[in-house]
C-alpha cells in the first residue's frame, strides 16, 4: 500500500476517538440537566463543575484528532 493511502486510512481511523468524546459530553450535560430539574436551586452552584467536566471530556476526544492531524501532516 502506498504511504499516502495508508496515511489517509490511519487519519480516518484515529478520528473514531471522537465517538468517546461525543458520548462523554452527552453524559456530562445529561447528568447536569437531570440534576438541575430535580433541584433547580442548586443548579447554579454546579456550573463551574459542568464547564470543567465538559472541557476535560472534550480534551480526551481532541487528543485523537491531534493524532489524526499528526499522521496526515507530520509523517
Amino acid at each position, binding site marked *: 500500500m502506498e504511504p499516502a493511502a495508508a496515511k489517509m486510512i490511519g487519519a480516518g481511523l484515529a478520528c473514531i476517538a471522537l465517538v468517546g468524546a461525543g458520548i462523554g459530553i452527552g453524559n456530562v450535560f445529561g447528568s447536569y440537566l437531570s440534576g438541575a430539574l430535580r433541584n433547580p436551586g442548586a443548579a447554579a452552584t454546579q456550573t*463551574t463543575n459542568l*464547564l*470543567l467536566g*465538559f*472541557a*476535560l471530556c*472534550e*480534551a480526551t476526544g*481532541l*487528543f485523537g*484528532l*491531534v493524532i489524526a*492531524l499528526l499522521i496526515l*501532516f507530520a509523517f
Partner: protein
Amino acid sequence: MNLNPMEQFAVKPILGLDKPLFEIAGHPIYFTNQALLMVIVAVVSSLFLTLAVKPNRLVPTRGQSMAEMSYEFVAGMIHSATGEDGLKFFPFVFTLFIFVLCSNFFGMVPGSFTVTSQIAVTFALASLVILMVIVVGFMKHGIGFLKLFVPHAPWYLLILLIPIEVISFLTRPISLSVRLFANMLAGHTMLAVFGGFVVALGSAGGLLSALSIAPMLLIVAIMLLELLVAFLQAYVFAILTCIYLNEALHLHDYH
C-alpha cells in the same frame, strides 16, 4: 485555487521584513505574523485594562465596568478554587486568562492569525503553569510536597497507586496545552473547510451557486460556536491552573 485548510496556520515573516532581526546560536529570529499578533494582544489588553479604569467613578462607565467585572470574575474563580491564600497568585492567573482569552478572540477576526493554535505557544504556557505549581509546592512544603502522590489507601494498593499518581501529574502539562491547541486548531480548520465549500459551490455556476448560501449560514453558526469555545477554553485553562495551585498549596486537605 489552492483550498488547503492548513495554510492559515503557517508562521511566516510578515510582509516586507525578509531579513532576520538577530541570531541566537545560528538560528535567525524573524518578526513573524505570530509575533505581531502577540504584540497586538499584549498592547491592546494592557491599554484597555489601564485606560478603562482611569475615570475611577463610583458608578462605573461601561469600559470601567468591563475591566472591573473581568477582575472580579477571575478573583471569584481563584477564591472558590484555591481559597484565601491563593489570592496572591491573582496577577499570574489573571495575566494567563486575559492573554489566552484575547489571543483566542483576536484569532476570530477574519484574516488574522491565532496565536494559541500553535503548540509551541500553548506548551510554553502550560509548562509555565506546571513549573509554578512545582516550585510553589516545594517552597511551601519542602520535601513533604512528595506526599501529594500518596493518597489515603492501604499499603498494598499504594504500590500501584503511586506510579499512577506520578504519571497523571506528569501528563498535566501535555493535556493542558493540547486541550487549548486542539480546540483552536479544530475550530479554525472547520471554518476554512466550510469556506472552501462556499468557494467551490459558488464558482460551479447555475443552481449550485445559489446553493452556496447553505455553507455560508453554517459558517455563521460555527463562528458563534467558536466565540463560545474561545471564552470557554480560556476559562478552563485558568480554572485548571487554580485547581493545580490548590493541590500544591493544600496537599490533601481540601475544604
